[in-house]
């Protein structure tokens, strides 16, 4: 892929990609390593438009298990995709969707109070929402074909076309 970024633009875009990737990968791995982890606690907190969905998940053990599984491995896959620059656009967009779902379950809106202590002080906007939008920005300013596994795939495609 043609690199139209300046060195500084590329540096910070890739750094942001690594940082978010690292964060999501560890969130997934931590859940995987903790046999006690379940999304029940989080879903029980759900109060806004997804409260009905969360309730449905919590009351159906099979669905809950599926959600837990998808959540853990989804986070790991997205994290790896971001760090390695592999299937980057899919990873970034899935990450965006996942984080928006997290946000919509527990948005810090005026009048909604949560039992679980929040990380910092938030009004409507919180770090989950910011991270989601950062992922959307990364998807629009891709770097994986310059620094990442996707470059190999690209190169492979070019070669095929040349033949």
């Amino acid at each position, binding site marked *: 892929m*043609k690199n139209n970024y300046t060195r500084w633009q590329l540096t910070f875009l890739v750094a942001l990609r690594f940082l978010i990737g690292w964060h999501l990968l560890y969130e997934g791995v931590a859940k995987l390593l903790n046999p*006690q982890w379940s999304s029940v606690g989080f879903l029980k907190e759900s109060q806004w438009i997804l409260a009905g969905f969360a309730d449905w998940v919590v009351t159906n053990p099979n669905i809950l298990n599926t959600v837990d599984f998808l959540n853990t491995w989804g986070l790991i896959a997205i994290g790896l995709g971001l*760090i390695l620059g592999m299937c980057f656009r899919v990873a970034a967009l899935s990450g965006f969707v996942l984080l928006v779902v997290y946000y919509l379950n527990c948005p810090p809106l005026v009048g909604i109070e949560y039992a679980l202590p929040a990380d910092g002080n938030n009004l409507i906007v919180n770090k989950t929402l910011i991270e989601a939008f950062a992922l959307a920005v990364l998807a629009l300013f891709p770097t994986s074909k310059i620094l990442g596994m996707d470059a190999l795939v690209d190169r492979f495609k070019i070669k095929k076309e040349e033949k």
Partner: protein
Amino acid sequence: MSDKKTDQGASQQENTGLNRDMKRRTVLKAMAGLPVLGLFGVGLLDKRNYDLSKKNSIIKDLGLDSLELPKSDYGQKKSQGELIRVGFIGFGTRGKQLSNALGFMHPDDVKTRQQKNTLNSWLEQEYLDVAITGICDVFDNHAENGLATAGNYTRPGGEAAPKLPVKRYRTYQEMLADKEIDAVIIATPDHHHARIATDAAKAGKHIYCEKSVALHEAELNELYETVKNSPVVFQLGHQIPQSVVFQQAKEIVKKNILGKITLIETTSNRNSANGAWVRHLDAKGNLKPGDETVIDWKQWLGAAPEVPFSVERFYNWTKWFDYDSGMIGQLFTHEFDAVNQLLRVGIPKSVVSSGGVYYWKDGREMPDSLHCVFEYPEKELTLMYSGNLASSRSRGRVFMGHDASMELGNNVIIHADSGSTRYREQIKSGAIDTRSPLLTYNPASQQIDAVSSASEKYYASRGLTTTTLNGRAVDVTHLHLREWLNCIRNGGTTSANIDMAFEEGITCIMAHRSYVEKRRMEWDEVNRRIV
């Protein structure tokens, strides 16, 4: 901008020449994420080692690494054994709950559960090989509910369960005389418990009796002697110790993690009309159904002094001394049972109670604020109970030891004590932080958790609602009934057997009399009577 130009130049060069050097550079660039992943792996290993070593050192120091949790066979047996035919004496609110726990549900409740999507979890409850074949209630509406419940075949066990006829009995004596009944569940108002249970034991019926076991010393003594000298299996309705959390707490106490326990504080707080036993009105504020045409009032009164029919007394009987002992009988009994199951404290040497009617001034006799102090000089500990019906502030149930305190609810939370002798070194070195739990027990994973994340610590303090066995959420009342039925079939002792019931009964009668008579009550161990 100059940056951009050089970069673009470089990439143009890359695109024009396809030499080996270029390929190598592409591969190198493609691998840019690998060092990051390597760093991640190093960090992860480091964190994992740190967590494990911290967890292991605390668990080892406490001797919890060899902790053995009892394995449950719940849900593993297909059939429990021979069918047991159960009769219900009293089918009010508690009777309904007990029938659900036994595996029976009223068709209306089945519909409600279907709508709420909670029916399946109930249907997955273990089939106990029982049939409700008799209902006895002095109130026609309750009796009809009971008949509809017993005859509903939407239940665990399903179509395979035997379909036996259900009979309504006008008096409990008729039911006890019937050979078609093997066991009875007594869920009447409290003033009937001891008499019905005694008669049931005499008739050779197994007994599951709701608390409180008795209101007077004489009837308790008679019940105790009768059950002791008969082969029937007796279970008092204290389902809380069926929770796996309790077995865990027992192990923790056995391992002496708390040090010497000298004070146990138990509490109950409620703050609603229903919680204060104002129950004669429905949700819209209308009087609930019931008059002398559908209620056998004379039978309802039983041995209690004769008074004219009153819907209020019928529904709110807990407010009067003739029928109950209020917070002691309804709430403290559970607290006492919890403590007695864990420490087997038995009957206290002395009890002092104090309180009054301070909020619910509706003509009741029963105090709405009540505090009792139970002394155990031989065991060198004090048990306190404090109940209030006009504030719902949760105060928990705490066992206070010299080295640590244990809060026991739907889970176990243990805090090391800053003045502890045993943990002095670890507290000094920072290995133990007295501000956060030393141990929590998560019943869902059946694992001791020494170091957990902030949110897990938080959930531990909030507690869970049902107990978890082999990965399934299970109603504790169901387990309590199951234990009773297992003992009927296979022998063995129930957890709330007649000895436990006697100790609890005497303790409660002492506490109640202390409040009523405004004096300190003592237990004469030699003559086995209250003085």
